Every structure is written in structure tokens, then in C-alpha cells.
């Protein structure tokens, strides 16, 4: 199959995150299976406009804001007639490929998460209100008529609120480390938080919850793992029992995760919450806020979700810690996620089954002359 994936970042982008890991893991498996795969993404300083990465082609043009326009231009000049299916990977802003593909190729959207409350954290107040209540609803309602793939039931439910009816949940992927740490749990009750120290992860609320819980579990400790803009301030304010490790190598993170009795997660929302999956793979249960994404990954990993309040997190922590310190759960290799091989296979099957030619688009004859296509590819590389 000839597949075009539109995503505003590729893995080489300095702001690449979980969605790009997902994309990269899947695309290289599709390419290895013999599919002709192209990823269109924003330009990255110091990287070529087109290159082959792990068997698939990456085409880069445009910035954070112009990548959507550049994708459409590239499609009109080089893409038309060359693909069987276009995957519109939505990170807040969709490419709306179903509105402009128009050559008979099938389209489908892939949504990791909706932004919603996160607008208020990532943008100044006026822009946040505009984004949350005007722009994003408008983008998602335009997308609602197209078939959509979502990485969790929470994302599916969120999309349904914007009118999307044809949404299929595909699994999130995870690769357990080759060498799982073989360590005993700490002798004293220990919680761990793992994530960037940014507002939307709410690290302050974890610290507050642990401080409240310490009234009833006096020796309770908290390890805060991760870098980020709030790190220095949080470190300065650190109360007793809280240790900040900053950004650490993966093996150190895994070691601490495995030694802790409980993992705490307090994000405003997630697409899935892969860190919960990771903790479960290390044999550590999660207590998480009951918010979209975290509720999916936490329940899948056998953890517990609580009302999104530090006081509630503290209460559950106090009630559940005795059980967690006496009987540590066995590691769950994939912690509720699937192997990347499974994800790549399931996602491709879902794309093939659910993608459709956009309404009102007349099927055109795809360009089959190989020399023309090669010229077009060269044009993309120029």
C-alpha cells in the first residue's frame, strides 16, 4: 500500500514527543513489510527537506504554523495520484486531508488526544479561551465527518463530544526494556513521580498529596524524576521527604520506578499515559487522577484512579500503601499497552478497514507511470 502520513513533527523535531515515537515505531514496521510510506512534517533546522529514515521517506516543509498549508501545497504538486491512503495525524490541529485530498485516495485521521483544558496551561488567557472554545471545537467538528482512529477510549469519548461518530480505538504501544531491573522494593514507603516538571503534569499536586499523606504515614518518601521549567523552583521549595532527581538516564529511571511502592500521576489529561504502562512493567502500581488518558492506562495496568484533587490522592495513598508495601504486584510486561509489532499490524488493518474516499470526491486515475513518480519524488527532495 502507498501510505502518506501527515504529522506536524517527525522524530527529528526538537519538540518530538510520544506521538512521534508512536509514528516512528509504526512507520518503520510498515516500510519493512513492503509498504511505500511517506511522512510529511514541519522543517527541522539542520535536517534535509527529504530523506529516507528506517525505510520510509520523510518530507519536511513549513513551520509549526505553516506546515498545514505546506502539506496541501506539496500534495497538489507531488502527492496527487501517488498514494492509496492518507493518514491525518492530529496534534491539536488537524490537516483536514479529507477536505483536499480529492484524487480518489482514501483518508483517515489519527488522534492521540484532544487539547481542551491544556489550552489554559499552554497559552495566555485570551488565546486559551479562543483556542479551547472556538478554534479546537471548530477543527474537531470539521474532522468529525471523517473516519478517525483514537489511541484510547477517553480520546474516542472526547471526539464524540465534537460530533465524531466513526471512531475506532487502536492500541497504544510500548517496548519493555531488555534488562528489567532486578531490585527489591525500598524498606520505607516510597512513591515516585515521573514526568516533565511542567504545569499540566501538576507536580505540585503530587508533592501536596504526599505531604498530606505523611500525616498518617510519617516515613513516606517521594522521588520526583524529570526535568522541565518548574524543576528549579520546585527543588528550592522541596518539603521534607521529597527528593528531586532531575532528568536521569533510562536505567536510573527504571531502577527507581522498580524500587518504589507506588507511582503517582496527576496530569490534566493525556492521550494514554505511557508512564503508567512503564511503571507497571517495573512491577509498580499507579494511583492516578481520574482524567482522560490516565484513566485508560491506569485501569489497563491494574492501578487505581481517584478524584483529581491532592486531598483525594492523599486519602487513597494512605489507604492503599499498606497493601502495596506488603505485596508488590508482579511486573506486567506491556502494562496494558501492546507490543509495537501488534500496534503496527492492528493500526494498518484499522487504516485499511476504516479509511474511505472523502464524501463528494470523484475517484481519479492514479499516476502509474513509474518515471513520472520518480520525477515527482526528486521534486520533493529538491
Amino acid at each position, binding site marked *: 500500500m502507498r501510505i502518506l502520513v501527515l504529522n506536524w513533527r517527525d522524530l527529528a523535531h526538537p519538540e518530538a514527543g510520544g506521538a512521534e515515537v508512536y509514528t516512528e515505531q509504526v512507520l518503520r514496521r510498515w516500510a519493512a513489510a513492503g509498504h511505500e510510506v511517506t511522512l510529511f512534517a514541519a522543517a527541522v533546522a539542520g535536517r534535509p527537506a527529504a530523506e529516507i529514515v528506517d525505510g520510509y521517506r520523510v518530507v519536511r516543509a513549513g513551520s509549526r504554523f505553516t506546515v498545514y498549508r505546506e502539506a496541501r501545497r506539496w500534495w497538489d504538486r507531488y502527492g496527487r495520484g501517488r498514494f492509496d491512503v492518507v493518514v491525518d495525524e492530529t496534534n491539536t490541529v488537524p490537516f483536514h486531508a479529507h477536505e483536499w485530498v480529492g484524487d480518489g485516495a482514501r483518508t483517515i485521521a489519527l488522534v492521540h488526544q484532544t487539547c481542551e483544558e491544556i489550552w489554559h496551561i499552554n497559552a495566555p488567557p485570551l488565546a486559551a479561551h479562543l483556542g479551547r472554545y472556538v478554534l479546537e471545537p471548530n477543527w474537531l467538528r470539521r474532522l468529525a465527518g471523517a473516519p478517525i482512529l483514537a489511541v484510547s477510549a477517553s480520546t474516542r469519548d472526547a471526539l464524540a463530544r465534537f460530533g465524531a461518530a466513526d471512531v475506532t480505538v487502536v492500541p497504544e504501544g510500548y517496548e519493555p526494556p531488555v534488562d528489567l531491573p532486578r531490585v527489591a522494593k525500598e524498606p520505607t514507603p516510597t512513591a515516585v513521580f515521573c514526568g516533565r516538571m511542567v504545569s499540566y503534569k501538576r507536580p505540585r499536586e503530587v508533592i501536596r498529596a504526599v505531604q498530606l499523606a505523611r500525616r498518617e504515614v510519617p516515613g513516606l518518601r517521594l522521588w520526583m524524576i524529570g526535568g522541565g521549567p518548574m524543576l528549579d523552583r520546585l527543588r528550592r521549595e522541596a518539603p521534607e521527604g521529597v527528593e528531586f532527581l532531575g532528568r536521569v538516564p533510562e536505567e536510573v529511571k527504571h531502577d527507581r520506578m522498580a524500587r518504589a511502592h507506588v507511582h503517582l500521576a496527576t496530569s490534566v489529561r493525556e492521550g494514554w499515559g505511557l508512564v503508567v504502562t512503564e511503571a507497571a512493567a517495573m512491577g509498580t502500581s499507579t494511583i492516578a487522577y*481520574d482524567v482522560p488518558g490516565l*484513566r485508560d492506562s491506569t*485501569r489497563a495496568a491494574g492501578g*487505581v*484512579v*481517584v*478524584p*483529581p*484533587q491532592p*486531598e*483525594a490522592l492523599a*486519602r*487513597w495513598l494512605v*489507604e*492503599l500503601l499498606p*497493601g502495596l508495601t506488603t505485596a508488590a504486584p508482579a511486573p506486567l510486561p506491556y502494562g496494558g499497552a501492546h507490543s509495537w509489532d501488534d500496534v503496527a499490524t492492528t493500526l494498518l488493518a484499522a487504516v485499511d478497514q476504516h479509511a474511505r474516499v472523502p464524501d463528494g470526491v470523484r475517484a481519479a486515475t492514479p499516476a502509474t507511470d513509474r518515471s513520472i513518480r520518480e520525477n515527482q519524488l526528486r521534486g520533493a527532495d529538491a
Partner: protein
Amino acid sequence: MRISFVVPTRNSARTLDACLASLRTQTHPDVEVLVVDNGSTDATTEIAGRHADQVLQWGPERSAQRNHGTDRSTGDVVVFIDSDMVLEPHIATQIHDRFTARPEVGALIIPERSFGDGFLARCRQLEKHLYVGDAAVESPRAFRREIIEKLGGWDEELTAAEDWDLADRTREVTAVGRVTAWIWHDEGRIKLRATFAKKRYYGRWIDQYVRMHADSSGSKFARTALLRKPGSLLRHPMLTAGLATLKLTEAAGLVMGIRDSRAAASASAGAR
């Protein structure tokens, strides 16, 4: 001791999953969950089907739903939970322990905290905090089966204030105790207009309750607990101002509802 949780629902999809999941993760080993739905058109019954031992259909309103749930439950204890509540894990264990330790106690209060989105939800949090331990406001939720059967269950004539009515009748026949674990009540995003409309609707039954319990109903409305801890209010002046607005809106809704009820009663008397 088997603990039966009875949850009446109607279009409760937003909150029901968290509620039922918290019932299913109770540390007590013998827990039964019954959902009594009343014609939901959203995903309520699908969510209920994932967690509950029995999903029943019954009406016309929540008192009748709870009584039907009691009839169909098999537990030694029946606990009435609303679909927007989340229970801490040890509540069922504490209910078992309290009833085992004190045979004279026939019903238990489970204290409540609230959570939700936005400023008014935080005002409500403050309000609920002030009610903890106030006998005029708190009502028992967990009943020994013989007690709830002896009382004849919930008054199906009441759609609001039915918890006060049952609390009054319970205290006449048995001692009421309490557990220390909390119920977390999901207030969602509170809107003044919706609050007014809801209270106006409830006002009709409040009027009926007042006529039925003329001797004891005054304290229910005075809400003296709000004034008993002035320090809590003074520490949060913004929340206090928001709470005052919320309570005034509710009071206006109730007054309008009572007026509607009396106007309807006099119109029907005139027609006769």
C-alpha cells in the same frame, strides 16, 4: 457480611464509570453492586453492565428505584450511593467493622467531600466541609437490612428531601453511627442558572416535606453549620462570597418552587 450497594441512575454516563469502579475496588471481599436505571438514553446501561451484578429498570424516580434495588439485593447491609459519588476503598470494610462492633447501631453516615471544575465547585467544597458532623444535614446511607425493611424504605411520594425524611424516621427506631472514610461527590461544573432550575423543581417536594415534618424541618434549612466555623469562611473570602451567591441562588429557586407548588395546589382546590 455482604454489603449491597444500590445506585439509582438516569443519564449518568459522565460520572457512573468512576462511581462503579470505586465500588468494585472496595477492599471488603463480599460486595454486591445493583444499578437501578430509569430509562437512560446515554451510555449509562452500557457502563453499568461492565461493573454491576444487576442492572435493573425501574421508576418513576429515585426513591422508587432505591426501594426496588433494596428488594432485589441480597446483602446483610444496603448502602445507597448516588451515581456521581466515588468511594474510598475501605468504606465497605469500615461498614462491616462498625456494624459488627456495635449491634445497637442500625444505620451509618458516610461523610462527604466534594470536587469538581471551576470556582463554584470550590465554593461547594468549602460548604460540604462545613457540614461534616452536622446532624441536621448529614443523612445515613448504610442500613442493616432489617432496619431499612422495618422502615418501609424510602418515601416514594418524595422526590426531594427524601433523605431527610428517611434520616428522621431512622433516628426514631435505631442508633446512627458513622464511618471515617469519605465519599467524594463529583459536582462537575456548577452553573448558577442550572442550580436555580434544579432547586425550583425540588421546591415542590420540599414544601411537602415541610408539611410532613413541621416539628423538625426548620433546622434543615437554617444550615447553621455554615456559621459555626467562621474561621473557615474568613480564611477564604473569595470562596465565601461565591458560596453566598450560590446559596442565595438556591434559596431563590426553592422559594419559587414552593410558590409554584402552592399555586398549583390552590388552583387544583379551586377547580374542585
